[in-house]
């Protein structure tokens, strides 16, 4: 089945070769439910030759799985004692929990819209936004990057301390009126 095979076979389609190549790069997914069924089928001898060989190769690497298959085969022919009543009682409860569980829906309550609460909440939101804006502005104006260019922050603070803003010029108009 070579591309230009000598046996006259139809050349393999590219997807087959590509699928084989890709499959060798992919890690096998773990499907536990499928694996449990495979092992049970192997223990029951219900697999064809290929599947039996596949599973045999897998359980050769997994001693737990090999033990499970061997135990299942042993138990299949065994006579077993009745279970302890405690085991049965507990198991029955486990099922009851599942079978009797149901979704409890919360009763749909009426949504009452009160104008006062609505106005109060919107006002509160607006006030919070204004406060947050003012606070952010205050913080931002104290940042180093906001001071005038060429002045270090410390220098600006010192200027403000020793060279305060021009004082108010107070004039005594009464005196001039006397002249």
């Amino acid at each position, binding site marked *: 089945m*070579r591309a230009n095979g000598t*046996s006259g076979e139809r050349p393999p389609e590219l997807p087959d070769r590509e699928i084989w190549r890709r*499959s060798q790069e992919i890690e096998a997914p773990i499907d536990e439910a499928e694996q449990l069924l495979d092992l*049970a089928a192997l223990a029951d001898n219900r697999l064809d030759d290929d599947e039996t*060989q596949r599973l045999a190769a*897998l359980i050769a690497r997994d001693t737990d799985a090999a033990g499970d298959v061997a135990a299942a085969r042993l138990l*299949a022919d065994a*006579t*077993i004692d009745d279970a302890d009543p405690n085991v049965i009682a507990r198991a029955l409860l486990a*099922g009851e929990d599942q079978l009797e569980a149901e979704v409890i829906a919360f009763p749909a309550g009426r949504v009452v819209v009160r104008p006062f609460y609505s106005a109060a909440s919107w006002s509160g939101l607006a006030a919070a936004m204004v406060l947050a804006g003012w606070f952010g502005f205050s913080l931002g104006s104290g940042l180093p990057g906001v001071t005038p260019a060429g002045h270090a922050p410390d220098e600006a603070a010192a200027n403000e301390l020793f060279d305060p803003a021009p004082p108010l010029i107070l004039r005594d108009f009464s005196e001039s009126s006397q002249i």
Partner: protein
Amino acid sequence: MRVQQLNRDLGDRRRDQPDPLAALLVGDKRSWDHFVRRYAALIVAAVRGVAAASGDVEDLAQEVFVRLCKDDFRLLRTYDSTRASLSTWMTIVARSTARDALRRRRPDSVPIDAVPESHLKVDAVEPTPKLKLPEALLSPRQREILGMLYDKEMDVAEIAAALGIDPQTVRSAHHKAMLKLRAHFKSDS
């Protein structure tokens, strides 16, 4: 109780018989009771082979029942009577569940000062290599044939001669293997 009798009762039903698990899976409480009484002994026997101490058996059996009915009997719904008998499947499930439960249990703690230093040495553990897709899905023979076809560029006649099998067997193995790989990629996409 003979296990073979369990298979006749529930696992290996005839075509004209109703599915005994069907009623359970739609929430019939009596079916669960019937199921538990039928399979409790088998589950206990299966778990006993895994449990380190006899005192663990009851708890581990309970773990199995809880797992079976968890999430609306999700695991029980995966059982396929065409592939295995119910009792065999239950044995495999019980042992696997019990082993997982034992692994989850926290070991008894001991103050570190009370442990001799030589006991604290940890042997290097090589990580277990994960299986590639062909190892998980294909038989050794199928992998060998695909490898000869596509990696070694051999044709069917050459492969048949090398393996000492009929060319038709080579074609059949190739076909089955490709069906499996294709099915995987199809379901994956």
